[in-house]
């Protein structure tokens, strides 16, 4: 009883509860608004928009999943099982597409594949002057862009699985006379299954909540429809109904991902690690492997990046690099810094309590903080908007509301770095320091903080960079005079001023690279 009371009054506890409340309340409001909507609105949406939107969203997710599966697993297998010149270089560069925000890749591809664009020109040289290629503003266009942007998730997880797998299983199969390809299909692939499934679920979660690519390519998904409803209608009822559907859909994939991730843990720890033997191919095989990887990396990163550079140095683009441009850069930076700091401050008590005192309440707070995963940008914006207009309209249109939306949206990314840092911080270490004669303050300074510091920095940097490239919530909630780099890209690119959008886009890509390095270094050594 005393411990219970003690927990309730602890300021840390209050902070954690407030943080969890801040995240759950908006979601609750949107849900309530959707459920209390006039049944006529529901039935109108069911008969008009919802079937199309659900079909579009699910079929896009499905095709992207299939393609990322093929790309991710094949590249991971080549990197881990084949030896060829420049292998380490390819190993790293396959992750680079993650530095491209989807809206940037989408706008580059709507130029490349667009009507009268360079790809069509090349195609007409081959297939005759009247022939057409598929439009980027279509199902296949959206599939291509999303697949190129997200296959590294599957690649990273498959690569880890292949590296940490106990190679004896494969060796036994080979010794028993099973062919190489049979071994792959019957032994290797089944062992990788949980990792692949986790990667694909991550991809699907990403596709379902993406706003950038689908809005650039005008492909109607639930996330895009929420944004359109919010900007085109005078009440938010329809937007909140679509949001609720979207949250449910995302939740299904999140749970799937969690479930497979847990299963994937269990064999990776078993078995003694030995690095797998890498085969060497002849010059022909080697050039095919290099060509295949080269094609993927250039389509997903190198070619778009080169185009952005070329556009950025064009005179039209150079003319925009005035003090206003640096204003946008500064806005992006300060907003992202505030959101990252707010995220760390709010995430810290939640993560600390869940790890140190894993009561039902504290674990509940932690799960609540992960809700951002199922709140795509426009939904997070809608949620915050609805909440603030009801509870604290003073902040409407101010920067506070935008930062709250960022924190809700990106806290999960931060928590994933904060949590392991706190898990390292076993109380035994502090106790040992105390018994060896260190005072409280010295223990805190010399033991506790050094242990958690890197996790903090990682969480901060990750949230900073995610916020930096965030688009939909910024579009919906930005205060007067607070255009960011992402907003500029969207404004210029959606009117097809490709050159003018390029400098901001390029800057976002460049700034994302260090975050990517941090993100990957966590997962890099798989074993």
């Amino acid at each position, binding site marked *: 009883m005393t411990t219970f009371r003690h927990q309730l009054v602890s300021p840390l506890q209050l902070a954690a509860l407030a943080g969890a409340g801040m995240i759950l309340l908006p979601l609750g409001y949107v849900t309530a608004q959707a459920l209390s909507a006039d049944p006529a609105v529901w039935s*109108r949406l069911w008969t*008009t*928009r919802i079937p*199309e939107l659900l079909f579009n969203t699910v079929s896009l997710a499905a095709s992207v999943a299939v393609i990322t599966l093929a790309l991710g697993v094949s590249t991971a297998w080549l990197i881990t099982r084949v030896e060829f010149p420049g292998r380490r270089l390819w190993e790293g560069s396959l992750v680079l597409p993650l530095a491209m925000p989807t809206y940037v890749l989408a706008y580059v591809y709507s130029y490349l594949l667009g*009507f*009268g664009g360079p790809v069509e020109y090349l195609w007409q040289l081959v297939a005759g002057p009247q022939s057409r290629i598929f*439009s980027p*503003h*279509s199902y296949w266009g959206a599939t291509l862009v999303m697949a190129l942007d997200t296959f590294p998730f599957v690649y990273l997880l498959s690569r880890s699985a292949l590296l940490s797998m106990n190679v004896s299983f494969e060796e036994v199969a080979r010794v028993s006379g099973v062919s190489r390809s049979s071994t792959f299909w019957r032994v290797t692939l089944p062992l990788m299954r949980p990792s692949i499934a986790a990667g694909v679920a991550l991809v699907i979660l990403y596709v379902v909540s993406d706003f950038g690519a689908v*809005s650039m390519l*005008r492909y*109607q998904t639930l996330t895009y429809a929420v944004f*359109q409803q*919010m*900007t*085109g*209608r*005078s009440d938010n009822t329809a937007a909140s109904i679509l949001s609720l559907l979207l949250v449910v859909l995302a939740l299904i994939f999140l749970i799937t991902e969690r479930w497979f991730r847990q299963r994937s843990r269990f064999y990776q720890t078993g078995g003694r690690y030995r690095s797998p033997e890498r085969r060497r191919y002849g010059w022909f095989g080697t050039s095919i492997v290099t060509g295949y990887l080269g094609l993927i990396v250039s389509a997903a990163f190198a070619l778009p990046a080169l185009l952005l550079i070329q556009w950025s140095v064009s005179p039209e683009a150079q003319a925009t690099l005035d003090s206003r441009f640096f204003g946008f850069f500064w806005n992006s930076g*300060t907003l992202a*810094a*505030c959101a990252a*700091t*707010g995220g*760390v*401050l709010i995430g810290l008590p939640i993560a600390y309590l869940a790890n140190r005192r894993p009561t039902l309440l504290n674990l509940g707070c932690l799960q609540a903080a992960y809700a951002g995963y199922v709140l795509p940008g426009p939904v997070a914006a809608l949620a915050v*908007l609805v909440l603030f*207009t009801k509870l604290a*309209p*003073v902040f*409407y*249109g*101010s*920067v*506070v509301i935008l930062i709250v939306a960022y924190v809700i949206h990106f806290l999960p990314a931060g928590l994933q770095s904060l949590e392991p840092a706190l898990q390292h911080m076993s109380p035994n270490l502090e106790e040992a320091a105390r018994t060896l004669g260190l005072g409280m303050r010295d223990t805190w*300074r010399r033991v506790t*903080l*050094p242990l958690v*510091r*890197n996790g*903090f*920095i*990682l969480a*901060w*940097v990750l949230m900073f960079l995610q916020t930096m490239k965030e688009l939909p919530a910024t*579009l*919906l909630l*930005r*205060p*007067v*005079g607070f255009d960011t780099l992402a907003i500029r890209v969207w*404004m210029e690119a*959606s*009117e*097809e001023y490709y050159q003018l959008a390029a400098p901001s886009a390029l800057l976002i890509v460049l700034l994302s690279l*260090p975050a990517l*390095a*941090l993100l990957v*270094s966590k997962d890099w050594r798989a074993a």
Partner: protein
Amino acid sequence: MPFVRSLSGLSHRTILSGFLLLFAAGLGFWSFVPSALAADPLTIYSGRSERLIKPVLDSFTANTGISVELLSSGTTELVNRLKAEGDRTPADLLITNDAGSLELARMAGLLYPLNMQEVEQAIPTQFRASDNAWIGLSGRFWVVVYNRTMVQPNQVKSLLDLADPKWKNKIAIPNSGSEYLQAGVSIIRATHGDEKTRQFLQGIKINADSQVYQKSSQIVDAVAKGQVALGIVNHYYVYRHLAVQPDAPIAVLIPDQQEGGMGAIMNVAGIGVVKSSKHLDSAKQLVEFLVAQAGQKLFADLDKEYPLRQDVKADPALVERNSFRAATIPLSKLAELREPTLVLIEQVGLR
């Protein structure tokens, strides 16, 4: 992680207090700086894109020394925002490209009725709110843009002709969120009734298929490239395209001019002063600037629209205003027509 390692030289307290300082400084920056500066600039919410409004505002600033903060976004989005912000809104003025949205804002009590002689002399009554809470600044027409190599101008007489199955996969239309599509459909409904409008919408939905665009400039582009033969756009997008690429094979067709026809669908871009504005004098100064001869010329020409002031000539490239007739539905009715129009658009399932 070399980056992290290089930071580990710093003491923990420096880093922690760095975090806190950054956060506090950020919050402080926003809570104090705007209020300290709030005395001067006018804040404008604009549904007209930055590219088309900023030069006019810059010229206003150059003339009067009054600086301007601009938030360019979607029209409906901005009206929603004004409603939600209520008296606390930083906005002093609302500029939109659609009279219906201005009228809705007026009906919601967001706008301040102006009693200014300059306005009454310059802008004809049919282009203003009954109480002058909003004032039209320039006129635009919803027209058909066609590719001259693919279509003869006599093939289309009315907007409703675009629903004909012979144009399957040959037309491009704006998305249903755009206020001028909503206004156009409202006027078609008021003229032809719901059933005929529904058939029209179903027809263009099928004909356009995936050629549904967020921006009208993209529609004109698609027509110029021959990706589609026809598009429905506001007239000025065509002239803006032609100003940059004079050789583009496109032309404007002003529809519904036949005997007994509806007349071309007109809308205005306009401005209203926000009721809670604390800079009423500067705001009025801007309105005055925009309805004066020079301002009208600047505002209309930048976007190749028709000035509403009778003594200001439109850009000579445009079709002579007196040579065609506009639909007769009053602009102020656009507001009450809006909601049933949206329901109809949604029922048809336009994107």
